[in-house]
């Protein structure tokens, strides 16, 4: 890798980020500026920010690496992220959220829920859940960014982690959501260009679209010999029904992320940053195309890297991707880029991945920080002060926690466990189980009660935690609590339940609890409901 070339590309990139952040800092004066980017965001900026926040290094490095193992069955997640994550989210959730958010003058997702159900306690509880759970997601995104920088620059992981965190911290703390969204739009554009180039190069190198797929299909026997016992049937076909790999692919990766996207606080808040429904409509077009490229390319290139490592690369000849990467799933894509692509592209892709990591992290830090500052400190605890300053301190605190988790997680989890993809899926699953029934009820059902909201959130959270700590062996084993209490790695050890994702159990339980308890709760007063649903059909 040419260090001067890389340094020049990164320097230009960082200068642009610094310029955009400075512009945002100058334009940030009020709490609405810091938390909602002034509610007047351009549809291109909004759509790219939504997409770039959603697509992190997790999607590219983590899920791309997972696709190199599980195969192109992950294309179903591409479908769900576009259909559910963009179309359903914007058309059926976005418009109502924007209007109700305006009616209630909500600045954050927990504040939206708290004001809808007239409960600062609910706002504080939702904020607390975000503040406690999101560092896991942020830390795995940080790990993905750090791992790539480590691979390309051959620097120590901890050094990469420190500087990556520091750069993002500066612009999020100072510029708030305006800085986050301005830089997201730029970073999203870089990601789009980088991913399109990656796809074209990969197909060109492997002999064209159909030839490349056929060569991968031809490696079927190798896949079955390596992973067949766990349900693998080849990289261009779906895992065997109800096998271990089928359960991981369907319940964790496809459903966990594909459904979980609807209840992501850092994404939902973006609906409240535009000033008309027209901007949301326009964003559907931009977002759909962006997500198709950003997610779809990773899930195509990941599996195809097996062909490159096995046949095309002399250094790894006869090895499939996971073997070439030393059994570390999260190193497959970085290794593929560094060995298969020209030097100039490695530099471009370095910036692409930096963009993916920084855009997601900045939004996560902002969401966690405002949860602490706005929802917990200011609203639930009733403390007063300079709102922008309080939220800046909250963001700083959230960054510190995520940094230390990213530093410690690789020690707890071995590389082969695809911790980046799993960490992302776990967070998406918890959000879906805890927030989705309450959020859906809030914007669609006038008779939804506070009791129903609490019941869904508590049930979703507790069932998810129970499943993670005591059932799902990939998490319960390294966390050791199940072993300490019951002497086994998982209460379902030896059965397929041990690989089922918490979402599949926790979301139905949460929906059931919401529906059952809703009838017992005291109805929200009609006058308030009228305010909430003002100009919502």
């Amino acid at each position, binding site marked *: 890798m040419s260090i001067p070339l890389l340094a020049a590309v990164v320097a230009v990139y960082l200068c642009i980020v610094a310029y955009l952040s400075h512009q945002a800092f100058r334009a940030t004066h009020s709490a609405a500026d810091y938390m909602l980017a002034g*509610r007047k965001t351009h549809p291109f900026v909004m759509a790219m920010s939504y997409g770039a926040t959603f697509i992190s290094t997790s999607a590219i490095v983590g899920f791309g690496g997972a696709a190199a193992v599980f*195969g*192109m*069955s992950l*294309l*179903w997640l*591409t*479908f769900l992220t*576009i*259909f559910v994550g*963009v*179309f359903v989210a914007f*058309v059926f959730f976005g*418009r109502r959220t*924007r*209007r109700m958010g*305006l*009616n*209630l*003058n909500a600045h954050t997702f927990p504040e939206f829920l708290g*004001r809808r159900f*007239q409960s600062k306690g609910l706002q504080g509880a939702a904020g607390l859940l975000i503040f406690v759970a999101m560092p896991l997601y942020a830390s795995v995104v940080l790990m993905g960014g750090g791992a790539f920088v480590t691979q390309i620059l051959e620097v120590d992981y901890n050094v990469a982690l420190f500087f990556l965190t520091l750069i993002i911290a500066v612009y999020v703390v100072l510029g708030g959501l305006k800085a986050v969204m301005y830089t997201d739009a730029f970073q999203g554009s870089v990601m789009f260009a980088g991913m399109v180039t990656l796809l074209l190069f990969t197909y060109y190198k492997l002999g064209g*679209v*159909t*030839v*490349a*797929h*056929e060569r*991968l*299909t031809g490696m*079927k026997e190798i896949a079955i010999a390596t992973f067949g016992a766990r349900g693998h049937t*080849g990289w*261009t*076909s*779906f895992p065997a029904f109800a096998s271990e790999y089928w359960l991981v692919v369907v319940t964790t990766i496809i459903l966990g992320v594909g459904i979980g996207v609807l209840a992501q606080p850092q994404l939902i808040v973006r609906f409240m940053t535009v*000033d*008309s*429904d*027209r*901007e*949301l*409509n*326009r*964003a*559907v*077009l*931009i*977002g*759909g*195309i962006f*997500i*198709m490229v950003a997610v*779809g390319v990773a899930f195509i290139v990941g599996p195809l890297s097996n062909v490159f490592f096995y046949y095309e690369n002399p250094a790894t000849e006869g090895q499939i991707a996971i073997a070439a990467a030393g059994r570390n799933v999260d190193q497959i894509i970085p290794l593929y880029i560094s060995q298969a692509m020209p030097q100039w592209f490695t530099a471009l892709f370095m910036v692409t991945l930096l963009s993916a990591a920084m855009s997601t992290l900045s939004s996560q830090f902002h969401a966690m920080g405002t949860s602490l500052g706005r929802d917990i400190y*200011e609203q639930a605890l009733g403390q*007063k002060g300079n*709102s922008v300053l309080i939220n800046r301190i909250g963001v700083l605190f959230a960054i510190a926690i995520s940094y230390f988790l990213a530093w410690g997680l690789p020690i707890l989890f071995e590389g082969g466990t695809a911790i980046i993809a799993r960490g992302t899926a776990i967070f998406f699953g918890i959000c879906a189980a805890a927030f989705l029934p309450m959020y859906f009820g809030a914007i669609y059902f006038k008779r939804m009660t506070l009791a129903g909201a609490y019941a869904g959130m508590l049930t979703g959270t507790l069932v998810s935690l129970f499943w993670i700590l005591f059932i799902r062996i990939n998490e319960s084993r390294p966390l050791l609590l199940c072993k300490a209490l019951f002497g086994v790695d998982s209460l379902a050890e030896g059965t397929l339940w041990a690989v089922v994702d918490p979402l599949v159990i926790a979301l139905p339980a949460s929906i059931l609890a919401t529906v059952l308890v809703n009838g017992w709760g005291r109805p929200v007063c009609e*006058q*308030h409901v009228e*305010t909430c649903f*003002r100009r919502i059909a």
Partner: protein
Amino acid sequence: MLGLEGVAVPLGFLLSIMSTVLCAVYGFVNWNRGDRVEELDPCNPQWEGNETARNICRDTRSS
């Protein structure tokens, strides 16, 4: 299809493309649709009797 095996993976590929087209068509058709909704001014006398508006107005002023 395109060198992919079975039904499920090609179907996932096809659905991804179709959902992208759906988003593109929806966005294009509704490009200029969607009214701007004026922000509720909770401190406006029009909402004087509304408890929600009164609370929001108080919170806005205090922060």
